[in-house]
């Protein structure tokens, strides 16, 4: 059990983590998500007592990490696969860590076998690949048979076999009743491994819920509707009819329409009522990645742009036509991963307002963590009104 209360970390003027409170419970794999620079690693470092919080505190099984009588026997951590002295053998590296907590040397050979590094035990870790480094880091986390495990990006650089192994290892460790807290950027991996999610953005808690709830609460579920290409008027007619019926309609690049806020049969009825023929009416289920993208849109600090290669080109004479690349999907289009909620284009991730309970309406309209910093709002609470959203949103 990891428990953080009001955790805050400032580096000079920059606040890396602000007022973060969460619990990581035993028995499940808890994923820890957030964009680059959102404070995940800082939080992990505070949990492990490497950084002192500016405010708040974090405990493991009720103790601050630095007060644990034998930390590696309680908590195993993989923070950084490269945090080893490259000149030391793998075995000696693990041995010096084992000795630090009174773990016998035969346990070192045991975990080397578990992670599959027994053949390179006497090789200096400088020559290890990233994946081998990760295995060594996981070995050091497993050394003390701990009840709490923290992994920062454990599958980084692992081969597919290794990824599968880590996935099963996490699940197995959690099934044994251990607390497993994993950060990762690989959403597909998280969807397979984690049952519970803690999402932070810009150092603040965005979500603390199960993966299933997370996807449905931040769902980008929509219906794709296509009218006959030959008749653009039908498309406009349907758009008007659907909007009137309470749905939100967003055109896609290929001429189809994304419709949210209306169940599929209703869309069909509306189209029928407006006597518009449909070529396609298909449900689109959101993945964890889409839900995550939707939630963290507003909290991304480092966003890539298209490389125009202008710095390499000769200066064109004035008036010459500029070359520009067509926009990439998702690029500079805030609503790409999900249509923006009605009435307010570009609001980061408010819940769809219309038709709560409809399959595309984002059924359990949970509290907006950005809009409401008040703790423990009940799930049944009405979604915040657009006005408060606008005031509080960034």
């Amino acid at each position, binding site marked *: 059990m990891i428990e953080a209360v009001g955790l805050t970390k400032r580096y000079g003027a920059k606040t890396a983590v602000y007022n973060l409170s969460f619990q990581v419970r035993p028995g499940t794999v808890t994923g820890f998500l957030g964009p680059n620079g959102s404070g995940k690693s800082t939080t992990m470092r505070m949990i492990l007592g490497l950084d002192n919080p500016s405010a708040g505190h974090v405990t493991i099984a009720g103790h601050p990490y630095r007060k644990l009588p034998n930390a590696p026997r309680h908590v195993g951590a993989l923070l950084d696969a490269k945090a080893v002295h490259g000149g030391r053998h793998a075995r000696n590296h693990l041995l010096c860590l084992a000795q630090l907590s009174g773990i016998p040397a035969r346990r070192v050979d045991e975990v080397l076998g578990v992670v599959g590094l027994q053949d390179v035990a006497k090789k200096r870790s400088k020559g290890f690949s990233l994946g081998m480094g990760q295995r060594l880091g996981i070995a050091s986390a497993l050394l003390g048979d701990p009840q709490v495990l923290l992994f920062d990006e454990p599958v980084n650089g692992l081969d597919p076999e290794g990824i599968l192994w880590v996935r099963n290892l996490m699940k197995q460790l959690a099934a044994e009743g251990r607390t497993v807290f994993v950060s990762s950027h690989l959403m597909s991996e998280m969807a397979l491994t984690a049952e519970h999610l803690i999402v932070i953005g810009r150092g603040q808690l965005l979500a603390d819920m199960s993966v299933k709830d997370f996807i449905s609460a931040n769902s980008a579920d929509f219906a794709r509707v296509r009218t006959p290409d030959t008749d653009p008027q039908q498309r406009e007619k349907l758009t008007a009819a659907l909007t009137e019926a309470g749905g939100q309609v967003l055109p896609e690049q290929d001429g189809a329409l994304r419709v949210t806020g209306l169940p599929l049969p209703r869309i069909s009825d509306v189209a029928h009522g407006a006597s518009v023929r449909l070529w396609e009416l298909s449900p689109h289920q959101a993945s964890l990645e889409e839900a995550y993208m939707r939630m963290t849109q507003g909290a991304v600090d480092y966003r890539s742009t298209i490389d125009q290669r202008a710095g390499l080109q000769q200066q064109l004479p004035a008036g010459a036509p500029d070359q520009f690349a067509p926009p990439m999907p998702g690029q500079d289009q805030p609503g790409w991963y999900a249509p923006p909620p009605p009435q307010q284009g570009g609001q980061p991730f408010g819940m769809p307002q219309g038709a709560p309970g409809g399959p595309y309406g984002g059924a*359990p309209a949970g509290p907006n963590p950005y809009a409401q910093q008040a703790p423990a709002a009940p799930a049944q609470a009405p979604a915040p009104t657009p006005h408060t959203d606008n005031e509080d949103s960034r």
Partner: protein
Amino acid sequence: MSTPHPQQAPAPVPPQGAPQQADPSGKWQGLPGAAYTSPIPIKRTHLGNALASEWTKIRSVRSTMWTLGIFLLLVIGTGLAIAANTEPRDYADVPYTLPAFFGLILGQICLITLGVLVVSSEYGTGMIRTTMTASPQRHRVLAAKFLIFFLVAYVVSFCAIGLVGLITSGMHEDGSVEAAPMGGTLLKGSLYVSLLGVLALAVGALLRHSAGAITAMLGLVLVPAILPAFLMISESMRPIGEKMLDYNAPNSLSKIFEIDGGTGGTSQLWLLIGVTAAAIVGAFIRLEARDV
């Protein structure tokens, strides 16, 4: 819960009250098993664990072998070369360990380097985060580093100086002159260079950067040996220059080895002990207060 099979234990109700929890009904958790408890008893760690760990660390990197190897080569090599070029009457009123002095002047740089590397290599590679995660009692790790390094440096320099003294006395002891006893030079000489290394370790822990700490230590050793030449020019600076000349590291060693028939270097040794103690205190304070 002491059962090794936690799944059989009744599942506790997950504690409530997590702020900003989407679903306070608790159903997301399913039925978590009881928290895992390792069947192997957990023992409280102590300084002995940290000492064993630091011993493994210091013997398992090549920089230790290189710096100590060069140290031994310098002290014993130059010592024997000088011993071979001296005569028995040269040892009137000086100890037989004197030839080791010249090697030590160079060799102390090796111990300084090793002292810095013992701690700064951990910061440079990131190993320090792994270490401090494995032992959140940071002061214990640093204390173990100081103890292990000091013991290694002391034993190695003691053996090197002693070996030079034994060989020299074997070559030149013919009863024609009365040599000074070498026990004091052996103890104090090896203490002085080991303490320089310990000071380097403390500086390394303060600066957390190998090149920076080694440079700082070289400055500390060499500048007081060079600067007096300039300070002596000015009349007002003269007293400072004389003190510097008296207490700089090479001169302190020469006093310990009774080269100018001097004081035995006790006050110089005390100065180094004081400076080292201050640096150690600073290193501990910084280690506890700052983020790793």
